[in-house]
């Protein structure tokens, strides 16, 4: 147990701090996001992530938002387990035809008001997969999309910028 505490103390807080944001893009972004979330969403938005056919690359970068470097929860953004608890659907992938109904049902299960963010080139425009017998292409071909975050995959910083765009919209 002592080992744990000593490692925790030694690691310290590596999350880039909010007080000296001058040169740090992440911090400036975070503070801006936090301000708007506080104002519009009483301090918190809940995101449900839906992989509608992604290669899993986008998921890896969305995961990274929760690591101690980005620690996105400190800005009031958290990921929830059910669309019924969500304000925002973060959708990745070209929508595979086999996931089309599942995505529609997830969308219907999300209470209003709700926003959809299409994450990654595939979700934005079909990407490397496009439209085929197996793929519906972009998310907007299946459900209405409010904000797009391109990239293959978008970096965690790009994801945060995109979420800020949503809150501003």
């Amino acid at each position: 147990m002592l080992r744990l505490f000593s490692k925790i103390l030694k690691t310290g807080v590596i999350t880039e701090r909010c007080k000296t944001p001058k040169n740090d893009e992440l911090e400036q972004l975070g503070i801006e996001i936090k301000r708007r979330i506080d104002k519009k969403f009483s301090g918190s938005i809940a995101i449900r992530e839906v992989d509608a056919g992604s290669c899993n690359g986008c998921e890896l970068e969305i995961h990274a938002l929760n690591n101690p470097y980005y620690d996105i929860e400190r800005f009031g953004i958290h990921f929830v387990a059910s669309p019924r608890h969500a304000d925002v659907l973060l959708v990745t992938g070209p929508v595979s035809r086999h996931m089309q109904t599942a995505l529609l049902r997830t969308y219907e299960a999300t209470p209003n008001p709700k926003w959809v963010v299409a994450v990654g080139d595939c979700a934005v425009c079909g990407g490397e997969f496009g439209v085929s017998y197996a793929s519906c292409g972009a998310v907007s071909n299946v459900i209405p999309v409010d904000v797009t975050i391109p990239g293959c995959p978008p970096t965690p910083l790009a994801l945060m910028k995109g979420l800020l765009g949503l809150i501003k919209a």
Partner: protein
Amino acid sequence: MNACWTIEFLNRLSTDITVAQSEAASTTIWQIESRHWQRFAELASQCQVRWVAGWAEHLDARFLVNACFENAGVYIVLRTAISCATPELPSQATVYPAANRSERHTQDMFGIHFIGHPDKRRWTRHQAWDKHSYPLRKDFPVHGKPQDITPPDMDYPFIKSHGAGVYEIPVGPVHAGIIEPGHFRFQAVGELILNLEERLGYVHKGIEKIAEGRAPEALARLAGRVSGDTTVGHCWAACRAMEQAAGIEIPVRASLLRGILAERERIANHLGDIGALCNDVAFVFAQMQFTRLREGWLRGNASYFGHRLLMDRIIPGGVACDVSDSACSLIKQEIVQLRAELSELVPALDLNSSLEDRFYTAGLLSTEIAAAFGTLGYVGRASGQNFDVRRDAAYPPYTQVRVRVPVEAQGDIASRFWVRYKEINASLHLIEDFIDLLAAGDIRAEWQTPQADSESLGIVEGWRGEITAYIRFGSDNKIARYYPRDPSILNWPALEKLVLNNIVPDFPVCNKSLNGSYSGNDL
């Protein structure tokens, strides 16, 4: 059997089966009559030959059906031709359970009937195309004839169970975490799992179909997105196959850089998953520490190679980016730091009684079952399957170094956990070795248009295990057929076995300890 198993095995076959041998671009092809398809499998199985992959191809009025086999690091492709008028041949799945889903995939995509297959149900097909259409036949248009809204796959006949206190838990396709979609159907009594059935195919994106007609660079990009966490592995396998087919040898420096990229990918995934495994048993300390290490490692990828996940770094003929000497010394410093971090963290994990309690004896996969299913990578190696392409069928740059392959026989989650930790250490050594071997030189060989019909099988060890990529070129430098076999295709069935008699709440950690790719499986 030794490396000459093929000669001995051919002698053994000669009384029953006539084999026409041919060599095509680093790939040995054995052609037999379709009626011997199953008999061949029986004889191969008796000689402990491993079933590796199965795929088909539509050429004019016939189908070529292929199955790849391996023993002692020597691979052969078994092939038979059947007419489109009577597309059937005996199943190998009765002999090799590993061939089960692969044959069902071939059945769904080509309409080839495997006689005597133990499972008559569809696999890759849900409701996006009808029962009598086959997407990989040449007359099937790439756009198909989809409905406006593809209906859900409601009537898939899952295995049922009855009895007092037995209940079912359907999970997915949309899961609670930030993970890929798939369906799991549990039958349980109380908390105990009686049976698990996987229903995958939700992220089927038509990769094999949209690969047709691509130029080599475009195919490499697609291969890099078969499974986003294995972008280096799949891209390398596809490029290796294309280079072999075109008769291109890549520069030494390019192969060393590919080695560095592949080992960096392995380490990034192992770091992330070791943390995630601990998180699945509520040990958040380790999750936070390992995601921290992973993030540092990915930032290294971005600064040395220009992409956090290393996508599109490997291209036909070589690599897209070079590293400077100063970057090499930074990479070496980074390795020293990572070792120091791990030497502090790992004893803390090792001494943690709650991890011990949850990992040991949970999710047991016996060596027998692992062998029967042809289980690959760290899942196989934690269950006594002592195989690694980098060592046993070495390819550049692994031919220049000693590859250490950690193997355990315990077969539980703890075993998979420790094999992966040991693989991190082995990969760190490899990166150091590759950097030491780097000498000035080209990083890309000039591409040569391969002859029409040239084909090859590219085989590499991805972080999940052996990846095979089959490529056939058509005319004008265009791809006629691409079939990538992700290790997950062989590892997923092992999950159905290793969760038995575990409790439902341990399913996430059992699943994570195997960590199959949905995308790589569904194609």
